[in-house]
Protein backbone atom coordinates (compact mmCIF):
# COMPACT_ATOMS: atom_id res chain seq x y z
CA UNK A 1 0.00 0.00 0.00
CA UNK A 2 1.47 3.35 -0.96
CA UNK A 3 0.60 6.73 0.44
CA UNK A 4 -1.43 7.75 -2.57
CA UNK A 5 -2.80 11.25 -2.33
CA UNK A 6 -5.34 13.24 -4.27
CA UNK A 7 -4.22 16.76 -5.05
CA UNK A 8 -6.76 19.34 -3.98
CA UNK A 9 -6.59 23.11 -4.06
CA UNK A 10 -5.56 23.04 -0.41
CA UNK A 11 -2.98 20.27 -0.49
CA UNK A 12 -2.52 16.53 -0.77
CA UNK A 13 -5.51 14.63 0.55
CA UNK A 14 -4.96 11.02 1.64
CA UNK A 15 -8.21 9.13 2.15
CA UNK A 16 -7.35 5.70 0.77
CA UNK A 17 -4.12 5.02 2.63
CA UNK A 18 -2.34 5.98 5.87
CA UNK A 19 0.02 8.65 7.20
CA UNK A 20 2.26 6.59 9.48
CA UNK A 21 5.36 7.91 7.75
CA UNK A 22 4.62 11.27 9.34
CA UNK A 23 4.54 9.68 12.78
CA UNK A 24 7.69 7.69 12.42
CA UNK A 25 8.70 8.48 16.00
CA UNK A 26 5.76 6.36 17.20
CA UNK A 27 6.49 3.60 14.69
CA UNK A 28 10.10 3.40 15.83
CA UNK A 29 9.11 3.43 19.51
CA UNK A 30 6.53 0.71 18.91
CA UNK A 31 9.03 -1.43 17.05
CA UNK A 32 11.46 -1.00 19.94
CA UNK A 33 8.82 -2.44 22.28
CA UNK A 34 7.82 0.79 24.02
CA UNK A 35 4.32 1.37 25.32
CA UNK A 36 3.25 4.07 22.90
CA UNK A 37 0.32 6.45 23.04
CA UNK A 38 -2.03 6.33 20.07
CA UNK A 39 -1.44 9.01 17.46
CA UNK A 40 -5.17 9.36 17.00
CA UNK A 41 -8.41 8.40 18.75
CA UNK A 42 -11.71 7.81 17.00
CA UNK A 43 -14.65 8.23 19.33
CA UNK A 44 -18.20 9.41 19.84
CA UNK A 45 -19.77 11.50 22.58
CA UNK A 46 -22.95 9.38 22.54
CA UNK A 47 -24.32 6.10 21.15
CA UNK A 48 -27.52 7.87 20.20
CA UNK A 49 -28.40 8.92 16.67
CA UNK A 50 -31.51 10.32 15.04
CA UNK A 51 -30.83 8.48 11.79
CA UNK A 52 -31.30 4.80 11.03
CA UNK A 53 -28.88 4.14 8.19
CA UNK A 54 -29.20 0.69 6.68
CA UNK A 55 -25.41 0.32 6.54
CA UNK A 56 -24.76 1.46 10.11
CA UNK A 57 -22.16 -0.65 11.91
CA UNK A 58 -23.35 0.80 15.23
CA UNK A 59 -26.19 -1.72 15.08
CA UNK A 60 -23.56 -4.33 15.89
CA UNK A 61 -21.70 -2.38 18.56
CA UNK A 62 -23.84 -2.66 21.68
CA UNK A 63 -21.68 -3.31 24.73
CA UNK A 64 -22.91 -4.55 28.08
CA UNK A 65 -23.80 -1.15 29.50
CA UNK A 66 -24.06 2.43 28.33
CA UNK A 67 -22.76 5.34 30.36
CA UNK A 68 -23.81 8.90 29.75
CA UNK A 69 -20.84 11.03 28.76
CA UNK A 70 -21.09 14.34 30.58
CA UNK A 71 -19.23 17.48 29.60
CA UNK A 72 -16.81 17.07 32.53
CA UNK A 73 -15.96 13.53 31.38
CA UNK A 74 -15.34 14.75 27.86
CA UNK A 75 -13.09 17.63 28.89
CA UNK A 76 -11.11 15.47 31.32
CA UNK A 77 -10.66 12.99 28.51
CA UNK A 78 -9.12 15.68 26.32
CA UNK A 79 -6.79 16.76 29.11
CA UNK A 80 -5.65 13.16 29.41
CA UNK A 81 -5.22 12.87 25.65
CA UNK A 82 -2.98 15.93 25.68
CA UNK A 83 -0.92 14.50 28.54
CA UNK A 84 -0.59 11.15 26.77
CA UNK A 85 0.52 12.74 23.50
CA UNK A 86 -2.52 12.01 21.35
CA UNK A 87 -2.44 14.29 18.32
CA UNK A 88 -5.94 14.09 16.89
CA UNK A 89 -9.48 13.00 17.68
CA UNK A 90 -12.10 12.07 15.12
CA UNK A 91 -15.69 12.22 16.29
CA UNK A 92 -17.08 9.36 14.24
CA UNK A 93 -17.33 5.97 15.98
CA UNK A 94 -20.73 4.63 17.00
CA UNK A 95 -22.98 7.64 17.57
CA UNK A 96 -23.96 11.11 16.36
CA UNK A 97 -21.75 13.36 18.47
CA UNK A 98 -23.41 16.59 17.31
CA UNK A 99 -26.45 15.82 19.47
CA UNK A 100 -24.38 15.61 22.65
CA UNK A 101 -24.37 18.61 24.97
CA UNK A 102 -20.62 18.14 25.24
CA UNK A 103 -20.11 18.55 21.48
CA UNK A 104 -19.30 22.26 21.25
CA UNK A 105 -17.25 22.53 24.46
CA UNK A 106 -15.34 19.38 23.51
CA UNK A 107 -14.24 20.81 20.17
CA UNK A 108 -13.39 24.20 21.58
CA UNK A 109 -11.37 22.66 24.43
CA UNK A 110 -9.48 20.40 22.02
CA UNK A 111 -8.51 23.44 19.99
CA UNK A 112 -7.09 25.09 23.11
CA UNK A 113 -5.02 21.97 23.82
CA UNK A 114 -3.70 21.79 20.25
CA UNK A 115 -5.47 18.51 19.49
CA UNK A 116 -6.80 18.34 15.93
CA UNK A 117 -10.47 17.45 15.56
CA UNK A 118 -12.29 15.74 12.72
CA UNK A 119 -16.00 14.99 12.70
CA UNK A 120 -18.41 12.86 10.72
CA UNK A 121 -22.07 13.78 10.98
CA UNK A 122 -25.39 13.49 9.24
CA UNK A 123 -25.71 17.26 9.89
CA UNK A 124 -29.37 16.97 10.82
CA UNK A 125 -28.90 18.60 14.23
CA UNK A 126 -26.00 20.75 13.09
CA UNK A 127 -27.67 24.12 12.94
CA UNK A 128 -25.97 27.43 11.96
CA UNK A 129 -25.28 28.43 15.58
CA UNK A 130 -23.48 25.16 16.21
CA UNK A 131 -21.67 25.36 12.88
CA UNK A 132 -20.33 28.82 13.67
CA UNK A 133 -19.16 27.67 17.11
CA UNK A 134 -17.16 24.69 15.88
CA UNK A 135 -16.15 25.13 12.25
CA UNK A 136 -13.15 27.38 12.91
CA UNK A 137 -11.73 24.71 15.26
CA UNK A 138 -12.19 21.65 13.08
CA UNK A 139 -9.63 20.16 10.69
CA UNK A 140 -12.12 18.18 8.63
CA UNK A 141 -15.85 17.62 8.48
CA UNK A 142 -17.31 14.67 6.66
CA UNK A 143 -21.03 14.50 6.08
CA UNK A 144 -22.71 11.15 5.78
CA UNK A 145 -24.77 11.38 2.59
CA UNK A 146 -26.08 7.96 1.71
CA UNK A 147 -27.34 8.91 -1.74
CA UNK A 148 -27.56 11.85 -4.11
CA UNK A 149 -31.33 11.77 -4.56
CA UNK A 150 -33.64 12.93 -1.75
CA UNK A 151 -35.96 9.90 -1.84
CA UNK A 152 -33.11 7.41 -1.86
CA UNK A 153 -31.34 9.32 0.89
CA UNK A 154 -34.45 9.26 3.08
CA UNK A 155 -35.01 5.56 2.40
CA UNK A 156 -31.46 4.58 3.33
CA UNK A 157 -30.93 6.94 6.25
CA UNK A 158 -34.44 7.32 7.67
CA UNK A 159 -37.89 5.79 7.76
CA UNK A 160 -38.77 5.87 4.09
CA UNK A 161 -38.55 7.74 0.77
CA UNK A 162 -41.36 10.12 1.68
CA UNK A 163 -39.28 11.67 4.50
CA UNK A 164 -37.20 13.91 2.27
CA UNK A 165 -37.20 16.65 4.89
CA UNK A 166 -34.10 15.06 6.41
CA UNK A 167 -32.30 15.44 3.08
CA UNK A 168 -33.34 19.06 2.75
CA UNK A 169 -32.25 19.82 6.29
CA UNK A 170 -28.84 18.20 5.85
CA UNK A 171 -28.20 19.94 2.53
CA UNK A 172 -29.14 23.30 4.01
CA UNK A 173 -26.60 22.83 6.81
CA UNK A 174 -23.87 21.58 4.49
CA UNK A 175 -24.37 24.54 2.18
CA UNK A 176 -24.19 26.86 5.18
CA UNK A 177 -20.84 25.33 6.17
CA UNK A 178 -19.48 25.56 2.62
CA UNK A 179 -20.43 29.22 2.50
CA UNK A 180 -19.02 29.93 5.97
CA UNK A 181 -15.73 28.31 5.05
CA UNK A 182 -15.52 30.45 1.92
CA UNK A 183 -16.55 33.65 3.68
CA UNK A 184 -14.12 33.26 6.60
CA UNK A 185 -11.42 31.53 4.58
CA UNK A 186 -11.34 28.64 7.07
CA UNK A 187 -8.82 25.82 6.78
CA UNK A 188 -11.40 23.08 7.37
CA UNK A 189 -11.84 20.42 4.69
CA UNK A 190 -15.48 19.63 3.91
CA UNK A 191 -16.47 16.34 2.34
CA UNK A 192 -19.43 14.07 1.84
CA UNK A 193 -19.30 10.30 2.12
CA UNK A 194 -21.39 7.54 0.64
CA UNK A 195 -21.19 4.09 2.19
CA UNK A 196 -21.67 1.89 -0.82
CA UNK A 197 -23.67 -1.27 -0.42
CA UNK A 198 -23.63 -3.33 -3.61
CA UNK A 199 -27.36 -2.82 -4.22
CA UNK A 200 -26.93 0.98 -4.27
CA UNK A 201 -25.20 1.15 -7.64
CA UNK A 202 -27.79 3.53 -9.06
CA UNK A 203 -26.87 6.06 -6.40
CA UNK A 204 -23.19 6.34 -7.32
CA UNK A 205 -23.42 8.97 -10.05
CA UNK A 206 -26.15 11.10 -8.40
CA UNK A 207 -23.96 11.14 -5.28
CA UNK A 208 -20.95 12.40 -7.23
CA UNK A 209 -23.11 15.05 -8.90
CA UNK A 210 -24.45 16.17 -5.54
CA UNK A 211 -20.89 16.63 -4.29
CA UNK A 212 -20.14 18.92 -7.21
CA UNK A 213 -23.39 20.84 -6.70
CA UNK A 214 -22.67 21.39 -3.01
CA UNK A 215 -19.16 22.61 -3.73
CA UNK A 216 -17.59 20.52 -0.99
CA UNK A 217 -13.90 19.68 -1.23
CA UNK A 218 -14.45 16.00 -1.85
CA UNK A 219 -17.09 13.31 -2.27
CA UNK A 220 -15.80 9.93 -1.18
CA UNK A 221 -17.29 6.51 -1.79
CA UNK A 222 -16.31 3.69 0.51
CA UNK A 223 -17.13 0.05 1.12
CA UNK A 224 -19.59 -1.15 3.74
CA UNK A 225 -18.15 -3.00 6.74
CA UNK A 226 -19.81 -6.12 8.10
CA UNK A 227 -19.12 -8.28 11.11
CA UNK A 228 -17.51 -11.69 10.80
CA UNK A 229 -20.91 -13.35 11.14
CA UNK A 230 -22.19 -11.43 8.09
CA UNK A 231 -24.99 -9.71 10.02
CA UNK A 232 -25.54 -7.03 7.33
CA UNK A 233 -25.27 -9.60 4.56
CA UNK A 234 -22.74 -7.70 2.42
CA UNK A 235 -21.61 -9.76 -0.58
CA UNK A 236 -18.13 -8.39 -1.28
CA UNK A 237 -17.88 -10.26 -4.57
CA UNK A 238 -20.51 -7.88 -6.00
CA UNK A 239 -18.31 -4.80 -5.72
CA UNK A 240 -16.25 -5.68 -8.77
CA UNK A 241 -19.21 -5.17 -11.10
CA UNK A 242 -19.44 -1.59 -9.84
CA UNK A 243 -15.90 -0.61 -10.82
CA UNK A 244 -16.85 1.04 -14.17
CA UNK A 245 -19.47 3.21 -12.47
CA UNK A 246 -17.02 4.15 -9.75
CA UNK A 247 -14.42 5.12 -12.34
CA UNK A 248 -17.03 7.22 -14.09
CA UNK A 249 -17.85 8.95 -10.81
CA UNK A 250 -14.18 9.74 -10.22
CA UNK A 251 -13.92 11.26 -13.68
CA UNK A 252 -16.54 13.82 -12.68
CA UNK A 253 -14.02 15.53 -10.36
CA UNK A 254 -13.47 19.22 -10.99
CA UNK A 255 -11.15 21.89 -9.63
CA UNK A 256 -13.23 22.44 -6.48
CA UNK A 257 -14.56 18.95 -5.75
CA UNK A 258 -12.66 15.69 -6.00
CA UNK A 259 -14.67 12.50 -6.30
CA UNK A 260 -12.65 9.82 -4.56
CA UNK A 261 -13.18 6.07 -4.37
CA UNK A 262 -11.53 4.10 -1.58
CA UNK A 263 -10.32 1.51 -4.03
CA UNK A 264 -8.00 -0.37 -1.73
CA UNK A 265 -10.76 -1.12 0.75
CA UNK A 266 -13.31 -1.91 -1.94
CA UNK A 267 -10.89 -4.31 -3.60
CA UNK A 268 -9.71 -5.87 -0.34
CA UNK A 269 -12.93 -7.81 0.12
CA UNK A 270 -13.81 -9.52 3.34
CA UNK A 271 -10.45 -11.01 4.32
CA UNK A 272 -7.48 -8.85 5.30
CA UNK A 273 -3.89 -9.73 4.50
CA UNK A 274 -2.93 -9.53 8.16
CA UNK A 275 -3.63 -11.92 11.00
CA UNK A 276 -2.30 -9.80 13.86
CA UNK A 277 -4.03 -6.50 14.59
CA UNK A 278 -1.42 -3.83 15.37
CA UNK A 279 -3.45 -0.82 14.26
CA UNK A 280 -5.27 -0.07 17.54
CA UNK A 281 -1.99 0.82 19.27
CA UNK A 282 -1.80 3.78 16.88
CA UNK A 283 -5.47 4.47 16.26
CA UNK A 284 -7.62 3.67 19.28
CA UNK A 285 -11.40 3.67 19.32
CA UNK A 286 -13.75 4.69 22.10
CA UNK A 287 -17.48 4.08 22.09
CA UNK A 288 -20.17 6.66 22.74
CA UNK A 289 -20.98 4.45 25.72
CA UNK A 290 -17.66 5.48 27.26
CA UNK A 291 -16.22 2.05 26.61
CA UNK A 292 -12.53 1.93 25.79
CA UNK A 293 -11.84 -1.02 23.52
CA UNK A 294 -9.08 -1.34 20.94
CA UNK A 295 -11.40 -1.08 17.97
CA UNK A 296 -15.04 -0.45 17.20
CA UNK A 297 -15.01 -4.00 15.86
CA UNK A 298 -14.93 -5.10 19.51
CA UNK A 299 -17.53 -2.82 21.12
CA UNK A 300 -20.23 -5.49 21.13
CA UNK A 301 -20.66 -7.49 24.33
CA UNK A 302 -19.48 -10.52 22.36
CA UNK A 303 -15.91 -9.20 22.57
CA UNK A 304 -16.02 -8.35 26.28
CA UNK A 305 -12.64 -9.97 26.88
CA UNK A 306 -11.17 -7.09 24.87
CA UNK A 307 -12.95 -4.39 26.87
CA UNK A 308 -10.40 -2.34 28.78
CA UNK A 309 -12.31 0.25 30.78
CA UNK A 310 -14.77 3.12 30.66
CA UNK A 311 -13.50 6.68 30.76
CA UNK A 312 -16.59 7.88 32.62
CA UNK A 313 -15.59 5.59 35.50
CA UNK A 314 -11.84 6.18 35.59
CA UNK A 315 -9.38 8.56 33.96
CA UNK A 316 -8.24 7.69 30.46
CA UNK A 317 -4.60 8.22 31.32
CA UNK A 318 -4.91 5.56 34.04
CA UNK A 319 -6.62 3.16 31.63
CA UNK A 320 -3.81 3.67 29.13
CA UNK A 321 -1.12 3.05 31.75
CA UNK A 322 -2.83 -0.06 33.11
CA UNK A 323 -1.58 -3.58 32.56
CA UNK A 324 -5.03 -4.53 31.23
CA UNK A 325 -4.64 -2.03 28.34
CA UNK A 326 -1.38 -3.59 27.30
CA UNK A 327 -2.61 -7.11 27.92
CA UNK A 328 -5.35 -6.55 25.34
CA UNK A 329 -3.03 -4.84 22.84
CA UNK A 330 -0.53 -7.70 23.18
CA UNK A 331 -3.33 -10.24 22.78
CA UNK A 332 -4.23 -8.73 19.42
CA UNK A 333 -0.55 -9.01 18.41
CA UNK A 334 -0.36 -12.67 19.48
CA UNK A 335 -1.16 -15.86 17.56
CA UNK A 336 -4.29 -16.27 19.72
CA UNK A 337 -5.91 -13.50 17.71
CA UNK A 338 -6.63 -13.81 14.01
CA UNK A 339 -8.02 -10.73 12.26
CA UNK A 340 -9.11 -12.86 9.33
CA UNK A 341 -11.63 -14.83 11.35
CA UNK A 342 -12.24 -13.06 14.66
CA UNK A 343 -13.44 -9.60 13.70
CA UNK A 344 -15.53 -7.74 11.15
CA UNK A 345 -14.32 -6.48 7.83
CA UNK A 346 -12.30 -3.35 7.05
CA UNK A 347 -12.03 -1.59 10.40
CA UNK A 348 -11.00 2.04 10.71
CA UNK A 349 -7.52 0.75 11.55
CA UNK A 350 -7.33 -1.20 8.28
CA UNK A 351 -4.76 0.91 6.39
CA UNK A 352 -2.54 1.28 9.45
CA UNK A 353 -2.76 -2.43 10.22
CA UNK A 354 -1.82 -3.43 6.69
CA UNK A 355 1.15 -1.05 6.74
CA UNK A 356 2.41 -2.22 10.14
CA UNK A 357 2.02 -5.87 9.19
CA UNK A 358 3.91 -5.31 5.93
CA UNK A 359 6.54 -3.37 7.88
CA UNK A 360 7.16 -6.21 10.34
CA UNK A 361 7.17 -8.86 7.63
CA UNK A 362 9.66 -6.82 5.60
CA UNK A 363 7.26 -6.61 2.66
CA UNK A 364 7.27 -2.82 2.69
CA UNK A 365 9.08 -0.94 5.44
CA UNK A 366 7.53 2.31 6.62
CA UNK A 367 9.87 5.20 5.90
CA UNK A 368 9.99 8.59 7.62
CA UNK A 369 7.91 11.19 5.81
CA UNK A 370 9.73 13.77 3.76
CA UNK A 371 8.63 16.83 1.84
CA UNK A 372 5.40 18.69 2.32
CA UNK A 373 3.03 17.18 4.85
CA UNK A 374 -0.33 15.98 3.54
CA UNK A 375 -3.58 17.51 4.75
CA UNK A 376 -4.86 16.20 8.09
CA UNK A 377 -1.46 14.72 8.85
CA UNK A 378 -2.39 13.89 12.45
CA UNK A 379 -5.28 11.68 11.37
CA UNK A 380 -3.84 8.31 10.43
Amino acid at each position, binding site marked *: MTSTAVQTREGALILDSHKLSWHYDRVAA*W*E*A*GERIAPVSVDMSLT*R*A*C*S*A*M*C*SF*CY*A*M*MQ*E*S*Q*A*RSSIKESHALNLLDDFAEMGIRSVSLVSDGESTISKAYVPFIQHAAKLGINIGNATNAWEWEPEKIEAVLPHITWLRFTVAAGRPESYAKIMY*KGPEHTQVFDRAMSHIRYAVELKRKKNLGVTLGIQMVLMPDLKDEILPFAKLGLDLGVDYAVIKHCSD*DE*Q*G*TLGIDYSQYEALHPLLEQAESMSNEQTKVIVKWSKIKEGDKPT*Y*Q*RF*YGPQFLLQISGSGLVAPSGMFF*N*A*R*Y*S*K*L*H*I*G*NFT*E*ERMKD*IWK*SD*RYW*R*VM*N*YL*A*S*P*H*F*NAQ*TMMGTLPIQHYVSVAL*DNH*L*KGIQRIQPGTGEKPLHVNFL
Partner: protein
Amino acid sequence: MDSAKHYADVPTPAPGAAWTALNGRQRVDQVKNKLEASPTQFLSQIEVVTAKADGQVIVRMKQSLPASQRGPFLLDLEDYLREIDQALVVWLEPLGDKNSLRNLRGIEVKA
Protein backbone atom coordinates in the same frame (compact mmCIF):
# COMPACT_ATOMS: atom_id res chain seq x y z
CA MET B 1 8.58 -5.38 19.41
CA ASP B 2 10.59 -8.56 18.99
CA SER B 3 7.69 -10.75 20.07
CA ALA B 4 5.25 -9.10 17.66
CA LYS B 5 7.73 -9.43 14.85
CA HIS B 6 7.91 -13.09 15.68
CA TYR B 7 4.15 -13.52 15.61
CA ALA B 8 3.26 -11.63 12.43
CA ASP B 9 3.57 -14.77 10.35
CA VAL B 10 2.64 -17.34 12.99
CA PRO B 11 -0.59 -19.24 12.27
CA THR B 12 -3.34 -19.17 14.85
CA PRO B 13 -3.55 -22.58 16.52
CA ALA B 14 -6.31 -24.92 15.34
CA PRO B 15 -8.07 -27.28 17.74
CA GLY B 16 -6.51 -30.70 18.10
CA ALA B 17 -8.12 -34.02 17.27
CA ALA B 18 -9.08 -34.71 20.87
CA TRP B 19 -11.30 -31.61 20.87
CA THR B 20 -12.76 -31.90 17.38
CA ALA B 21 -13.64 -35.56 17.89
CA LEU B 22 -16.09 -34.62 20.64
CA ASN B 23 -19.70 -33.70 19.96
CA GLY B 24 -21.18 -30.41 21.15
CA ARG B 25 -22.50 -31.77 24.42
CA GLN B 26 -19.21 -33.47 25.22
CA ARG B 27 -17.25 -30.30 24.54
CA VAL B 28 -19.49 -28.27 26.85
CA ASP B 29 -19.13 -30.93 29.55
CA GLN B 30 -15.37 -30.90 29.19
CA VAL B 31 -15.30 -27.12 29.59
CA LYS B 32 -17.62 -27.27 32.61
CA ASN B 33 -15.59 -30.01 34.25
CA LYS B 34 -12.44 -28.01 33.77
CA LEU B 35 -14.05 -24.91 35.24
CA GLU B 36 -15.39 -26.82 38.24
CA ALA B 37 -11.85 -27.84 39.01
CA SER B 38 -10.61 -24.27 38.94
CA PRO B 39 -9.78 -22.48 42.20
CA THR B 40 -10.92 -19.22 40.55
CA GLN B 41 -14.61 -20.24 40.66
CA PHE B 42 -15.30 -19.06 37.14
CA LEU B 43 -18.67 -20.80 37.20
CA SER B 44 -19.97 -18.43 39.85
CA GLN B 45 -19.73 -15.69 37.20
CA ILE B 46 -20.52 -17.42 33.91
CA GLU B 47 -22.54 -20.14 32.21
CA VAL B 48 -21.22 -22.10 29.28
CA VAL B 49 -23.58 -21.73 26.31
CA THR B 50 -21.83 -23.61 23.52
CA ALA B 51 -18.42 -25.02 22.71
CA LYS B 52 -17.83 -25.32 18.98
CA ALA B 53 -15.57 -27.68 17.09
CA ASP B 54 -13.57 -24.71 15.76
CA GLY B 55 -12.54 -23.81 19.32
CA GLN B 56 -15.02 -21.04 20.07
CA VAL B 57 -16.43 -21.27 23.58
CA ILE B 58 -19.48 -19.02 24.04
CA VAL B 59 -20.32 -18.04 27.58
CA ARG B 60 -22.98 -15.93 29.29
CA MET B 61 -22.20 -13.71 32.27
CA LYS B 62 -24.52 -14.22 35.23
CA GLN B 63 -24.15 -10.59 36.21
CA SER B 64 -22.66 -7.60 34.51
CA LEU B 65 -19.12 -6.61 35.43
CA PRO B 66 -17.58 -3.17 34.86
CA ALA B 67 -15.50 -2.89 31.69
CA SER B 68 -12.34 -2.68 33.78
CA GLN B 69 -13.06 -6.11 35.28
CA ARG B 70 -14.79 -8.13 32.58
CA GLY B 71 -11.89 -8.01 30.13
CA PRO B 72 -9.26 -9.36 32.52
CA PHE B 73 -11.73 -11.90 33.92
CA LEU B 74 -12.54 -13.32 30.50
CA LEU B 75 -8.91 -13.34 29.37
CA ASP B 76 -8.04 -15.24 32.57
CA LEU B 77 -10.85 -17.66 31.74
CA GLU B 78 -9.54 -18.14 28.23
CA ASP B 79 -5.99 -18.69 29.46
CA TYR B 80 -7.26 -21.32 31.86
CA LEU B 81 -9.33 -23.14 29.21
CA ARG B 82 -6.28 -23.35 26.97
CA GLU B 83 -5.12 -26.10 29.30
CA ILE B 84 -7.73 -28.19 27.46
CA ASP B 85 -6.65 -27.09 24.00
CA GLN B 86 -4.40 -24.21 22.89
CA ALA B 87 -6.92 -23.13 20.26
CA LEU B 88 -9.85 -22.36 22.56
CA VAL B 89 -11.15 -18.80 22.40
CA VAL B 90 -13.82 -17.31 24.64
CA TRP B 91 -16.60 -15.02 23.45
CA LEU B 92 -19.78 -13.79 25.07
CA GLU B 93 -23.20 -13.98 23.49
CA PRO B 94 -23.63 -10.89 21.27
CA LEU B 95 -25.97 -8.07 22.26
CA GLY B 96 -28.41 -6.44 19.86
CA ASP B 97 -28.64 -2.69 19.33
CA LYS B 98 -30.56 -0.84 22.06
CA ASN B 99 -31.29 2.11 19.77
CA SER B 100 -35.05 1.97 19.17
CA LEU B 101 -34.91 3.88 15.88
CA ARG B 102 -32.11 1.81 14.34
CA ASN B 103 -33.92 -1.29 15.55
CA LEU B 104 -36.70 -0.54 13.06
CA ARG B 105 -34.30 -1.91 10.45
CA GLY B 106 -34.87 -5.35 11.94
CA ILE B 107 -31.18 -6.25 11.93
CA GLU B 108 -30.39 -9.08 14.32
CA VAL B 109 -26.77 -9.50 15.35
CA LYS B 110 -25.77 -13.03 14.45
CA ALA B 111 -24.19 -15.24 17.07
